[in-house]
């Protein structure tokens, strides 16, 4: 038994604390990846069990049953049907919530039909007393043909017992606990005769679902055993009733609820949080507090990161032998990395707030509150979740649309989500706001810069809603509409879950964006440090000639040479070429370079400016912000980053779809290039026009 390596699958309904169990078992020892070909998140963790057994713990997406209606749920079935998958579980843990045991057991009985050794994990056992619930564990174990682990992932009890139980997986029953085929004996007997080597429930799942099934020609099963859609559904209804009858019979004996002891604080809270006035007021207050605090709290760590990287560059310049490599390091790589790391505080705070809202159960109340309003714009109440998580990143947000049942509502949500202010826009906003909006307070509390940021967020939401309204009028898609949202119990968010979520998401974002930014900053540095022709080569001579009557100090001379070189470098020439197109928007060729380079990822904007301004100057101690503030238009003598051009830039970045990953995910989720291309053309065109109008009015 010792030295074994086993696969454990965690399965369960949403909102049962499955992820907390996963975190309790694995700690930070987890890996997040994707299932091949699809973007469903795949979470594997490692756990040392007693007797030297090592377990790979797979956290499967939450599902209410094995009748899949989304790709996330499909992942669960495909794994459980494929014995050859290298993650096929040796033992399944079905995680349930003690307060929702009846519903949670439906999935349990289905997993049992697959004849996998199954442990029933009853979570949130710490609430039993509070809710007046008592369980007859031996009775339940006998009738459900399983072993039960009574745990509380919140209080951390029962985890060690669960680990001991997993080790004994070989002695855990893999027998079904009821005979579901009795709903139509003739049909199932014929099925059994036709495929004697196959598990009956597997065949049934293949007939009713769209899943890949490796060992069998599914067409063969389908053609001889298919029924009309509504006959199949009738059988599925019978099956569901059959399962519930069994569960009700077992729970009648095994579970007692003394409702006089139950203290219900859910309904009191619901009354306030879904109230027609207080509900909305509280929701907007929460949003307001989130956005104010992101800006205020992030300020100090961001300034710290900014100045640390500026001094690191200076240090590299001083300490390392002068040469091309040192320049690449101090002017390309270090400012590039700094440009990535500076996002961390804001992104982390955003992910923290979003994960608290989801963990606490509040998000479902928002869905409930907003559904009717959102439907006026062709969206669903469930679109609120993508639109809010879009403030962190559009990629997971677009993936979060999968639980929207109606295809038209889902498509519209996917198309408009990139308008919400994602965290990649934040560094662009942050630096421009800091440059053009005064750091004053109005009424003594409201920070003007924070208020501007808030307005930009509202603008993003506003544009998303407005575009949805237009799309709703244009798109002619008919589809079955239905909408079910579970309203989970309120829970205090667990620190560990929130922390792990924040760390994982921030890490994924930084390493994903980081690679692109680093590569682009190195390329940029090359393009900015070399140039064709005499003007670049003889920059020294040209500067001396131009200033022949004016004595220059050494630094003035160096700065002048550097900017002469930058202007005639490859990148300078590229920027100059597009200047006529962007100058009506108030931008110079340096901003043009930044817009080109940030086409694939908008956060590259700041990194690019950092690289350009480092290459352009001699002193690395000065931060990017100070350099940008000092930029002067040589023709007019005005600041480059003034109020008009600043607002124009903010609006440009608010609307333009500068994100290759968003295009890729839209393509994947809609299965067509039509939608991402439409998104790109519409958003970029809108950005240009709005920025143009704003600059022309304000200048």
């Amino acid at each position, binding site marked *: 038994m010792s030295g074994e390596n086993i696969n454990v699958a965690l399965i369960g309904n949403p909102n049962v604390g499955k992820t907390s169990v996963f975190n309790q078992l694995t700690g930070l020892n987890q890996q997040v990846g994707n299932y091949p070909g699809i973007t469903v998140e795949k979470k594997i963790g490692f756990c040392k069990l007693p007797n030297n057994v090592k377990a790979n713990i797979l956290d499967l997406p939450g599902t*209410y*049953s094995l*009748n899949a*209606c989304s790709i996330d749920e499909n992942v669960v079935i495909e794994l459980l049907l494929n014995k050859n998958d290298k993650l096929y579980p040796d033992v399944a843990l079905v995680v349930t919530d003690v307060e*929702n045991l*009846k*519903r949670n057991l*439906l999935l349990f009985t289905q997993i049992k039909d697959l004849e996998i050794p199954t442990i029933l994990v009853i979570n949130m056992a710490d609430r039993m007393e509070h809710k007046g619930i008592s369980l007859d564990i031996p009775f339940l174990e006998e009738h459900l043909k399983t072993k039960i682990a009574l745990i509380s992932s919140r209080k951390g009890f029962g985890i060690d017992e669960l680990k001991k139980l997993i080790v004994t997986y070989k002695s855990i029953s893999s027998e079904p606990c009821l005979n579901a085929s009795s709903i139509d004996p003739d049909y199932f007997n014929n099925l059994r005769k036709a495929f004697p080597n196959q598990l009956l429930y597997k065949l049934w799942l293949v007939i009713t679902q769209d899943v890949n099934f490796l060992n069998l020609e599914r067409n063969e099963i389908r053609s001889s055993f298919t029924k009309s859609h*509504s006959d199949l*559904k*009738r059988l*599925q*209804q019978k099956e*569901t*009733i059959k399962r*519930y009858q069994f569960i009700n019979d077992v729970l009648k004996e095994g579970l007692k609820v003394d409702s006089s002891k139950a203290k219900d604080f*859910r*309904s009191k809270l*619901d*009354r306030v949080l*879904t*109230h*027609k006035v207080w*509900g*909305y007021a509280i929701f907007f207050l929460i949003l307001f507090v989130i956005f104010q605090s992101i800006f205020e709290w992030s300020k100090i760590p961001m300034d710290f990161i900014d100045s640390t990287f500026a001094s690191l560059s200076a240090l590299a310049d001083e300490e390392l032998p002068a040469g091309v490599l040192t320049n690449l390091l101090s002017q390309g790589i270090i400012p590039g990395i700094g440009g990535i790391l500076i996002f961390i505080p804001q992104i982390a705070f955003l992910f923290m707030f979003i994960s608290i809202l989801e963990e606490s159960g509040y998000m*479902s109340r928002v*869905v*409930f*509150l907003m*559904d*009717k*309003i959102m439907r006026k714009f062709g969206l669903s*109440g469930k679109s609120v979740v993508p639109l809010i998580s879009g403030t962190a990143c559009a990629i997971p947000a677009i993936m979060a649309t999968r639980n929207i*049942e109606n295809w038209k509502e889902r498509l519209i949500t996917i198309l408009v989500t990139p308008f919400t202010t994602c965290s990649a826009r934040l560094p662009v906003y942050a630096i421009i706001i800091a440059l053009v909006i005064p750091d004053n307070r109005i009424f003594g509390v409201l920070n003007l810069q924070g208020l501007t940021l808030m307005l930009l967020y509202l603008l993003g939401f506003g544009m998303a809603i407005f575009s949805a309204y237009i799309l709703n009028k244009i798109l002619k898609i008919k589809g*079955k*509409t*239905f*909408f*079910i*949202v*579970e*309203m*989970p*119990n309120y829970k205090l968010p667990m620190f560990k879950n929130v922390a792990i979520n924040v760390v994982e998401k921030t890490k994924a974002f930084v390493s994903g964006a980081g690679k692109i930014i680093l590569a682009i900053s190195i390329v940029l540095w090359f393009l900015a440090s070399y140039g064709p022709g005499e003007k670049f080569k003889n920059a020294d001579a040209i500067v001396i000639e131009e200033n022949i009557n004016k004595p220059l100090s050494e630094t003035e001379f160096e700065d002048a040479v550097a900017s002469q070189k930058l202007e005639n470098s490859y990148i300078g020439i590229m920027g100059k070429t597009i200047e006529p197109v962007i100058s009506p928007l108030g931008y110079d060729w340096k901003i043009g370079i930044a817009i080109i380079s940030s086409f694939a990822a908008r956060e590259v904007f700041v990194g690019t400016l950092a690289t350009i301004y480092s290459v352009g100057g001699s002193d690395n101690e000065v931060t990017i912000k100070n350099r940008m503030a000092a930029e002067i238009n040589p023709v007019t003598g005005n600041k480059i980053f003034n109020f008009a051009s600043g607002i124009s830039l903010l609006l440009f970045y608010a609307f333009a779809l500068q994100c290759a990953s968003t295009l890729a995910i839209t393509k994947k989720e809609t299965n067509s290039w039509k939608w991402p291309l439409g998104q790109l053309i519409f958003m970029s065109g809108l950005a240009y026009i709005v920025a143009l109008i704003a600059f022309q009015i304000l200048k």
Partner: protein
Amino acid sequence: MRTTIFSLKKGEKAIIKDFDIDIVPLKLLEMGCLPGNTVELLQIAPFGDPLYLNINGSHLAIRVETAREIEVEPLKEDF
């Protein structure tokens, strides 16, 4: 007129009688919406839609268009 979940008042309880299987999604059945089970209307969202229900111990919200399809028999003793 038949009585459906839509015609219940806030706080009213009822027994689910029947519905058109082709219209009501399977997912709702799996959440416990089956003939014979109890349903309680807990809250009505502002603007009258969706409805927040307790079906057989599951707390969930559905839209009025679905609620109209589910026929129920109100339980009198609560009134």
